[in-house]
């Protein structure tokens, strides 16, 4: 049923969900009055919720508009500021935010958010520097510098969005480096690198992260790594690149096997679904490459349908055994 909660007068009642009310009303002769009462007591928002909402609404609108006004004001005057003012302003912001995280007494979550803001400001600082001095540096230099300079903050922070930002920066640096400097790296090689970097980050997170790592973060990195592996293998199949493709396939297989083992160990369907979906895609591309006609298209479609159905059935049975075993 819904969750049990305590009323204001101490009695306990269940919070019924909307779907349950809909289902029951379809198969009974309850009157409008009863359904209305049930909805108002359990589903619709009451006075306290409205008060909270209105306060939050006005406060957010107020802060949003004021901050936008201030930012636009600076944007208006930006061209006219001299370069010391520009860089000094941003550096001043970074310093003040870091001081705020160290010496103020707010909630640790807010401190983490401020630290993330400071890390983003470091990027802004480098961008402004590049814009003022027109150094002509490659974009990857900018991302590399940004990554290196926020490393310490990321390591001490234990804050998932900041780690995600850090990983995005590392990936972007690698990709831009390969495009601007190391032009002879093949796509398969880049994908292998990305797969390695992301899976090492994933393993690091799972084994050293203790309990506090949020699920969305692990799932996102898993998706990144699986995507890198998939894209690399698909490009490799079409490119006829033998050496790196074999290495990629070897590493990807280790990754998939590890993923399946971990998924079975922590009883989470997610890893198994992602890995099975990747394997299905890879095999379909393989069949597509050696096909040469309409009939093969039908064969591929039949293969996809049957493998997905089989996988879903398998996952469903696994899920049921886990639920019953609890």
């Amino acid at each position: 049923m819904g969750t049990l909660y305590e009323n204001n007068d101490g009695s306990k009642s269940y919070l019924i969900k909307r779907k349950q009310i809909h289902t029951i009303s379809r198969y009974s002769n309850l009157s409008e009055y009863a359904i209305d009462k049930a909805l108002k007591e359990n589903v619709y928002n009451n006075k306290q919720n409205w008060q909270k909402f209105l306060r939050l609404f006005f406060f957010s609108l107020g802060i949003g508009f004021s901050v936008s006004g201030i930012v636009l004001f600076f944007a208006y005057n930006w061209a006219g500021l001299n370069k010391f003012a520009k860089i000094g302003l941003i550096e001043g912001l970074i310093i003040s935010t870091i001081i705020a995280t160290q010496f103020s007494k707010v909630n640790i979550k807010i401190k983490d958010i401020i630290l993330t803001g400071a890390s983003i400001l470091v990027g802004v600082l480098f961008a402004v520097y590049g814009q003022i001095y027109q150094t002509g540096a490659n974009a990857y230099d900018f991302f590399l510098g940004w990554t290196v300079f926020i490393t310490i903050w990321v390591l001490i922070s234990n804050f998932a969005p900041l780690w995600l930002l850090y990983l995005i920066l590392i990936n972007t640096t690698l990709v831009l480096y390969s495009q601007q400097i190391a032009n002879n790296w093949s796509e398969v090689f880049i994908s292998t690198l990305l797969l390695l970097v992301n899976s090492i980050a994933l393993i690091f997170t799972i084994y050293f992260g203790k309990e506090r790592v949020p699920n969305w973060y692990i799932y996102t990195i898993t998706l990144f790594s699986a995507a890198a592996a998939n894209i690399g293998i698909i490009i490799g199949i079409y490119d006829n690149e033998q050496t790196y493709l074999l290495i990629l396939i070897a590493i990807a297989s280790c990754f998939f096997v590890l993923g399946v083992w971990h998924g079975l160990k922590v009883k989470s369907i997610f890893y198994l679904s992602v890995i099975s979906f990747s394997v299905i895609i890879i095999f379909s591309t393989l069949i597509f490459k050696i096909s040469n006609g309409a009939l093969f298209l039908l064969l591929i479609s039949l293969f996809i349908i049957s493998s997905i159905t089989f996988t879903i059935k398998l996952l469903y049975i696994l899920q049921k055994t886990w639920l019953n075993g609890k």
Partner: protein
Amino acid sequence: MENKDNINELMDYFRSIENEPVEFDEEAIYSAYPRVDGNQPLSIKILAAIGGILASFAFLGFILIAGLYESQFVSVLFGVMFISGSILVNKKYNKITTDAIGVSCYIIGLLLLVSGLSTDIELNGVCLLYILISLGVMITVQNYMLSFVALITIVASIITLILTNKSYGMANIYVIMSALFMTYIFLHETLFITTYKRLSQLYNPLKIASVLSFLAGLVLFSNNKFISLATRYNWLHSIVIILFIIYVLSNVLSILNINLTKHKILIFAFAIITLLPTLFFPPISGAILIILISFMINYITGFVLGITSLICFICQFYYDLNLTLLTKSILLFLTGVLFIVSYLFTYLNINRNEE
């Protein structure tokens, strides 16, 4: 079993709040219940949906490559077959994979139909045909996904009719009627789910489809920037929407126990004065209407849609304003201060009321 205990408790709860004796069709409730709780994790659902969609497209690919679409008659025939197939599949099975197959079959059927008929009837006729078919599908099948797609087809056909015939009058009527429809559906949930069993199952898709159709109307017909048909009567849309907002606000005020007429009039005046500058830009008041009614019935999807569209519309409004950057920044800052003042005002009032 867990489910049976839950259902028994639910039935007891309803017996306690109803004045007259109640009958429950217990067997039907027991069989409908497992789908209500939805134990399947999201990953399986996504896989199943992708599987279903791929299955239908595979079959479509086979038909296209076999060259069957070149004959008009065969196209129409296959179109009708696909659409009826989707209805049959949804009537017989009730799983996610078959949902996805049903929806893809329906869409492919519609496309085949139009490719077969495109030389015989023009766009207007096609839109009307789509509306009729979708209505029929909605009446026969009570499946969430398929009804949702059918409703979206109806809305898209109506919008296409208005756009291609450049009918300014109908555009105005569309915006006003969709606002009315949406507010009515949201505020009369009880009426919809108790009247007919079929209507009850259509209620959820109707809710989201009404919000989407209202947003589409705002973006296309009230907005001077986008596509073609922005009318000169924008302010009319704003006035109607603001009237609806006042109506909803009166409901909200009764929930908040603010009953003095003096206070009520003050609040209404504040709302009207705040929204008056956006008179020629109805989307902003429209978004606020969506936020208010979604919050009232605790409909999270609508709420999130409302907030996101409010942010987009406010950005667009200020971007289009013909003032210098300096004036805009000052204006933004002053508006922010106004809102913070109202926040403090409501905060103080609430504290004072509770003492």
